[in-house]
């Protein structure tokens, strides 16, 4: 992006600003950030010149000529690639191959059944009914992104105890999902933490929180929000803090309030992270597993597609069918991600 959009923050908030690259008399002494764009523009021709000069130089042997040298990057890559192959691609390939068989998970014999498993999945509408449950988690994700964005914005400004609050918000994400499941089981228990806290506030309720499908799903989605807000928060905070500080300064000088700063500086600059979060939220809500599996085991209408798949494989020994279900879920998530990327293309952000 070399062309500046007409509504770039600087032009809008500070019409009297001089042309880019020119010295800016208004800047306070000691602020070096402003020189960054200037030097970048100034530096560009030099770099191009250097590159252009390279072939002219008498270089007898480029590093590209030696086969050993050419292999060097691959040596560095060997270990991660081997791990990636062993633990991701090979299992996925095996899973895809199982999905065309009637394997029960133990037997040495398995029959090739073609696309039978897939036909079965798509002719059994009840297998997709569990996706309604994902709706709860999707709604929760929207809330979660909102909450995380709010706190990330607030805590990116100078506040007292801001590091403490950052820690508090991020902490749940560090706890193991299984532990969270157990903690919240006590939390939602009849007469458990939630009931006690409500009793202190003068609310006595007899409501079994995990007792009926709606309440159970809401409770579980709430746990999921509690757990993953920290992750979103850290992603957003990182993105917000990479916004150069002088933009806020300039905005402030031009009289922009916090909301305007948020709307015109923060949101555009964290757009890639925001769209990543949405992708994670959607794929996450389709494949919820840990928390409901531990807390309810999928009972009382809280079963999700992954829980259903696990039960097919390990309770009913239909490993072939379960593999096919897993492949279908994978395809579904890839498809949704692709659609989303088409709808919201990931263009580069350039504030300056």
């Amino acid at each position: 992006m070399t062309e500046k959009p007409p509504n770039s923050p600087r032009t809008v908030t500070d019409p009297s600003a001089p042309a880019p690259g020119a010295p800016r008399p208004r800047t306070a002494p000691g602020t070096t950030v402003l020189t960054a764009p200037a030097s970048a523009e100034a530096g560009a021709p030099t770099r191009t010149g250097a590159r252009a000069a390279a072939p002219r130089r008498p270089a007898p042997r480029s590093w590209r000529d030696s086969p050993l040298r050419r292999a060097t990057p691959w040596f560095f890559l060997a270990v991660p690639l081997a791990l990636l192959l062993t633990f991701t691609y090979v299992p996925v390939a095996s899973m895809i191959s199982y999905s065309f068989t009637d394997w029960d998970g133990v037997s040495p014999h398995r029959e090739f059944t073609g696309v039978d498993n897939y036909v079965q999945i798509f002719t059994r509408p009840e297998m997709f009914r569990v996706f309604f449950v994902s709706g709860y988690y999707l709604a929760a994700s929207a809330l979660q992104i909102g909450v995380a964005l709010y706190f990330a914005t607030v805590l990116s400004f100078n506040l007292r105890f801001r590091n403490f609050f950052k820690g508090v918000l991020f902490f749940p994400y560090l706890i193991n999902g299984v532990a969270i499941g157990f903690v919240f089981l006590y939390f939602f228990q009849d007469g458990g933490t939630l009931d006690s806290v409500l009793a202190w506030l003068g609310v006595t309720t007899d409501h079994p929180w995990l007792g009926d499908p709606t309440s159970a799903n809401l409770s579980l989605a709430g746990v999921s929000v509690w757990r993953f807000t920290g992750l979103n928060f850290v992603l957003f905070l990182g993105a917000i803090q990479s916004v150069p500080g002088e933009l806020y300064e300039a905005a402030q000088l031009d009289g922009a309030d916090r909301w305007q700063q948020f709307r015109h500086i923060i949101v555009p600059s964290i757009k890639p992270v925001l769209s990543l979060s949405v992708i994670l939220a959607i794929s996450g809500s389709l494949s919820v597993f840990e928390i409901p599996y531990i807390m309810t085991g999928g009972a009382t209408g809280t079963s999700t597609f992954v829980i259903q798949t696990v039960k097919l494989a390990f309770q009913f020994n239909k490993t072939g069918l379960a593999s096919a279900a897993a492949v279908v879920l994978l395809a579904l998530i890839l498809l949704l991600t692709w659609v989303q990327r088409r709808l919201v293309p990931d263009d580069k952000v350039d504030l300056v």
Partner: protein
Amino acid sequence: MGKTKALTGALLAVATLTVAGCSGGGAATGEIAAAPADPAGVSGEIKVLTHRTDLVQDGTLKRYAADFNKVYPKVKVTFEGITDYEGEVKIRMNTKTYGDVLMIPAAVAKNDYPSFFAPLGPAGELARKYRFSDKTEVDGKVYGIAQFGTANGFVYNKSLWRKAGITTWPRTPQEFLAALRTIGDRTDAVPYYTNFKDGWPMVQWTSNVGSVTCDAKATDKLAGPVSPWKAGGELHTIDTLVHDIVKQGLAEKDPTTTNWETSKALLAEGKIGSMMLGSWSITQMRAAAKQAGGSAEDIGFMPFPAQKDGAFCATLVSDYQQAVSAHSENKPAARAWIDWFTEKSGYSEREGAVPAVKAAPMPATLKDFVDNDVTFVERSEAETAVVNEIDNAAEIGLNKPDYRQKLIDTARGAQDGSLQDFFADLNKKWDEAARTAGS
């Protein structure tokens, strides 16, 4: 671009190789793992896979091994306790190293036994000596010997029931419900505890198939499109009782947050009236009663409330069956361990369970049953393979908590539908699966 293609090619090649390499277990010889004639002559090292991690940790199994070594001095026995026994062993059985002695995981289909385990002897011979040997019989050969068996019934707090004024065992489901209502009215206790959250305790209800009509072949009769939940069927009687207990508010208020470990103490303290469990639980409950300051006598065990010709019946079902791996290099030593552990170790007595050896007496925990002339019905396993196949194909899970959790949800109104519809749906699923899979 060229590089990407080469990489993709390599990836596919690796994947294909791995997939090809994974398929197929090892071939088994089918040679009988016979017990050695001379105890001093057998030697070698054997590894025993067990689900009893508690007994591995507290050294109980090591003491058994030491006793074993007094008879078989040259055999070294090691134990491997596995917490998620079913899940882990099932996966390990795709390799050749799954110990020398192991408990047969439920996931292994009966017809696959010969490719995983060494036969232990002809059916007739073992059936004379051991209970439950037909559970692992394939083509006239037996592949596993039960550790012990359990009878099924309600564990209940005797002193609490006495306090409510109930001293005789209910004889029909209606009487049982009335008894629970009395307990609910006259005491503060929860009359029945479902253990809904942990799930597996609800599976124990299924083991009453056979107790209701005093029929050892009741489970075998499920092998076919027989609508197991039709009126008059045993599962109909059993699951209607579960449903009614919950529907009439005789179970805990919030089943979704129950806790098994806590439930033991609650029953011992008289805060819970009863739970449907196997007789294996009596020892644990008595220990809990003593811990709570009560007496072991507070814990009672009663059969399913149904009588035939004026007598109660209790189905005996087998616990895990011990088998010798087909890939074991010390089969005689492994067999010697199984024989010794089943007959001489005193393990089943210590657990208060029904011994696998037919000649051995019933344990003290079942004294109530013996004194009241409860008929023990040893469940026939002749058609278990077919029943399991139908069960899995129908995705019902007679031995899984899910459908009974749904039943309870229906009973307490958390799920729409009536009991009749629920049973009709189960029957439909079962019969359809039986027609396609059971043939």
